[in-house]
């Protein structure tokens, strides 16, 4: 009986020892060594006890044998669990004295307004194409907003502008085009500018209209500027902004201050969430044209000598297309949760 009890006790001690060793092992190499140490066929200590069963009486043998098998299975199980837990990385982590997995301290994320970000992108492209930035007042006269731009006040085109007038007869500029006039009055050619700025129209707010919105004007005037330069510059811009593979289409339009006038459309290739690509419909992105000689004459330029082109686009509309915003009024809500989507990373 005694041999029997001793062996069972020895087995249980061995079990405890083995389980502790397994629990504190942190690497799979150590576990492999432990497996050999306890369960190894030749030198394993539990195997050793099993081998010693031969010295027991047949009566004692089953009880010890059963216990030995139980311990063997238990240690085996602990080893496997530990290996699995090490692989999964869960359970007790070796984190040292300081848990470096705790979150770091972060400053707030700031961000430019999404429409500003579009203007920034537009500026970066036009800057690389040799443009500088110009600005002009938001309150204008009929002269700068219409007449100098070859738009007589009794022309139906004035209706389309839906002008907001001040009590004193001045107006809120309906487009950034008056900057063209002011810049040409103050400078000699070559002119190569863009003019981003706020413009105003008497539009009731809806998903695609707000009574105030940003516009970005462009103007190029020099000797020898032709319709080809006009197309080339704007097509280059469109491909850089909307990405390679973008198709650009110019079709006839009407603006009193350009002739020939054009509407510029792009057809983009967009990548869907599942990785496939899709071609969009034609999207109207700007109005443009060759500067009307009457405009050049109005600022005292010789329209025989100089030619040029002008263009205008709406950064908020572009931002809406780019970011998938379906109602441009959100750009003026200034909801922190909205702005945060466009904040710095």
């Amino acid at each position, binding site marked *: 009986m005694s041999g029997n009890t001793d062996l069972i006790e020895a087995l249980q001690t061995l079990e405890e020892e083995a389980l502790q060793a397994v629990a504190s092992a942190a690497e799979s190499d150590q576990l492999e060594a432990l497996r050999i140490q306890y369960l190894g066929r030749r030198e394993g200590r539990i195997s050793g006890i099993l081998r010693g069963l031969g010295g027991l009486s047949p009566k004692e043998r089953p009880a010890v044998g059963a216990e030995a098998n139980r311990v063997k299975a238990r240690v085996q199980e602990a080893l496997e669990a530990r290996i699995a837990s090490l692989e999964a990385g869960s359970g007790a982590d070796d984190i040292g004295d300081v848990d470096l997995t*705790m*979150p770091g*301290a*972060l*400053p*707030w994320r*700031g*961000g*430019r*307004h999404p429409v*500003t970000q579009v203007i920034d992108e537009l500026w970066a492209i036009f800057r690389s*194409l*040799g443009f500088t930035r110009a*600005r002009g*007042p*938001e*309150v204008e*006269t009929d*002269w700068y907003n219409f007449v*100098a731009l070859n738009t007589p006040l*009794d022309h*139906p085109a004035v*209706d*389309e502008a839906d002008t907001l*007038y*001040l*009590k*004193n007869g001045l107006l809120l500029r309906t487009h950034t085009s008056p900057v063209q006039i002011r810049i040409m009055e103050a*400078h000699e*050619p*070559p*002119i*190569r500018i863009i003019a981003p700025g706020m413009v105003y129209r*008497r*539009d009731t*707010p809806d998903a695609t209209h707000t009574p*105030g919105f940003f516009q970005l004007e462009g103007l*190029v005037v*020099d000797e*020898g500027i*032709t*319709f*080809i*330069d006009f197309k*080339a*510059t704007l097509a*280059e811009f469109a491909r850089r902004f909307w990405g390679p593979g973008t198709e*650009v289409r*110019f079709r006839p*339009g*009407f603006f009193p201050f350009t002739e*020939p006038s*054009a509407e510029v459309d792009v057809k983009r290739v967009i990548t869907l969430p599942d990785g496939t690509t899709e071609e969009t419909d034609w999207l109207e992105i700007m109005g443009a044209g060759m500067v*009307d*000689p009457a405009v050049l004459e109005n600022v005292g330029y010789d329209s025989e000598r100089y*030619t040029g082109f002008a263009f205008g686009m709406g950064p908020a509309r572009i931002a809406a297309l780019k970011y998938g915003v379906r109602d441009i009024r959100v750009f003026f809500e*200034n909801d922190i*949760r909205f*702005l945060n989507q466009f*904040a710095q990373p």
Partner: protein
Amino acid sequence: MNISFQWLKALLPGLTESPEEIGETLALRGAPLEDLAYLAPGLDGVVVGKVESVDRHPDADRLTVCLVDTGSDSVQVVCGAPNVQAGECYPYAPAGVTLPNGMTLKAVTIRGVESNGMLCSEAELDLGPDADGIMALPGDLEPGTALAPALGLDDWLLDVEVTPNRGDLLSHSGVAREVAHSGSGEVTLPPVPGSRGNPWAETEDDTSLTSGPGGSSEATVPVHTAESEASGGGVTVRIEDPERCSRYLGAVIRGVKVGPSPAWLASRIRAVGSRPINNVVDATNYVLMELGQPLHAFDLAKLGGSAIVVRTARDGERIRTLDGEDRKLESEMLAICDASEPVAIAGVMGGADSEVSSETTDILLECALFDPKSVRATRNALGMSTDASYRFERGVDPEGMELAVRRAVEIILATAGGVPDPAVLDACPRPWAGLSVSMRPSRVKTLLGITLSKAEIQDLLSPLGYQVINGSEADDSLTFAVPGFRSYDTLREVDLLEEVARTYGYDRFPADLGPFRPGTVPDHPLFRLEDDLRDLLVGEGFLEAQNMAFSPEAEGVVEVSNPVSKEEAWLRTRILPGLVRRVEYNLARGVRDIRLFELGTVFQAGAATEDANKGPGEPPVAPEEEARVALAVTGARSPIHWRGEPLDVDLWYLKGLLGRLGACARVKGLGVEPGAPAGAPVVEGEGFTLVGEGGQAVGFAGSLEPGNVDAPAWAGPVWILEISLPAEPSPRPVPLYKPPPAFPGVDRDLALLLPRGMAAQRVESVIRETAGPLLVDLAVFDLYEGEGIPDGHRSVAFRLRYQSGERTLTDQDVEQSVTAVVDRLREELGVEKRG
């Protein structure tokens, strides 16, 4: 402009393009589609049914049992409509048809009587609002014909966007001309069903009414009387204002029978979205839609003195127009009058009193040419716009008038009968002389960048109706006769060049980016400054907001006279109120930590200057525009973190930001002074003023007075800041390189006892003045009051850093300076060193 595809096809029999393809063609010709819709999407399977007999339902008072001739068959239908009559035609939907409301019909038994299909109302077919009875159809329809084509609804409506310069596209023939250019053949007017021919075309001496759109201006028109007056058959037409009405054609038809239009005419009218009225009015509307020439039919019997006088209205004259409105005319409006009073507003709308009605027997058909600006001014003053005024404003073809009259008379004779007076009254004080415009082929190269020969230019323009008048190969000149329908916007060489580019095709031009010269306009420095401010604030964790400049009256001094919203009819004088409203918006959505900034324009009352505004008259005083930066912030300075509560935004953060932004905004003579400027909505004792050159306040920061923000109880104080930016900022300062000191610096801490009322800033100035050139940095690092400090004093501790670029400093160097500082502080300010 509503264009019916079928109508277009009638004008262009060679048309093979689909409605979608026409849309594409028109887009590339400068008139894209805003919309394209099939007119009768739910009429598949619905046919014309003729009711042969109507019997009472044996078992229901309100139902009838009808036998309906469906063309191929005679079927029994149970009908609930009160207006069903034997012998009449109605829409019949057989079993199996799905109505626009989604219902699929089946053969059913209604109270024991079998019913196969249904007779339909307008509403059931989605053709109109009428749901009270079944839809009566014109009697001349063949039973069994499909309903959609029978009603002229097997058609697409093309909503063409027409730019203001292209009045010539405001008609089917105008659009057909543009489409024809892409190779769909000639535009021809479809024959008028039941036409009795044209009375004037058949007599020798009156054949001169020209035919075909775009007829040559060389064609002469018989002027039946003296220049501005014409009379005949007891009717007189007189133009008293030839400037605004250059020509007036009046055709008299007697003995007409006014009634409903035949199906072909009614369906054309319906196809473009209008309602048929009667055969005479529909004929004039038809011609308006087909040729773009507005016409008007008067009841001749209602014209006093059987006269038409085209004259300016007399102040106070009134007219009730066709829309039932009583309108007061003014002296600058052009009116069509009879012998005594106005009967129409020229080019805008006719009068109700002389309207053609079912009693009318004799009519006078007006076809006149009015000055676009006059019509525009009149309709603007009256606050109305009509199909006619819309076209006159954009220019009606002076060469198309005769054709329009001929066409309208032919249709009226065919549909309403009657006998025309032998001659059209033609008052024409200013006959159309035609228009010719010259261009230099060399300008094609200069402006468009491509080289085209004279022949090529001619080939591009002649299909559009421009006829070359002269152009020898030798000189650089081509002269074109401009067709009347383009005579309003083809006036200059550049207009012809645009036509060349448009017809050549914008897509055919190369797009090779060539070299360019740099411009003479410097980058405006305010943009760079704004970018610097954005960088600084974004780095501080602020989000940029954008607001419009509209504000309530309390926040503005410049008023908009026609505002979008009466509540915001002014222009802001400060950015902050609008920005604080955005803070409120976010607080209301439970956001506690808010950091918003905005860059924008504010508008102050302007001072009269000698601003050289061009244009007529004295320029009014412009408001003074100023660019500003503002911010509003509340809550924590950083996100929550496990090491402890983050600091909240406070006074000192704001003060620091104010100085930093001031420097970034390149404020000259920058200083931050305690106390907010008068009028700033800042809590007393919790504000600062940013001063510039001469001590002028250019900005402020502080804690927003709680009364100025609608905030929930849990919200913290809102901190605000606003700075005016210089209109012409000086360039960014250029740092001048100094080698970093090679020798170590020495720090000395100096705790000083400041008596009550003494500003730390004064002490700081004295230290800086006294310490000498070796002092390179000075900072306050501690403030202490209480035990160990004499009553009425506080201890402010400064850290002085000494450093030399030439040698390692000795204790003696530093001691000497510190002693001088301490001595001077004691002598000058009575400030002692803390013991």
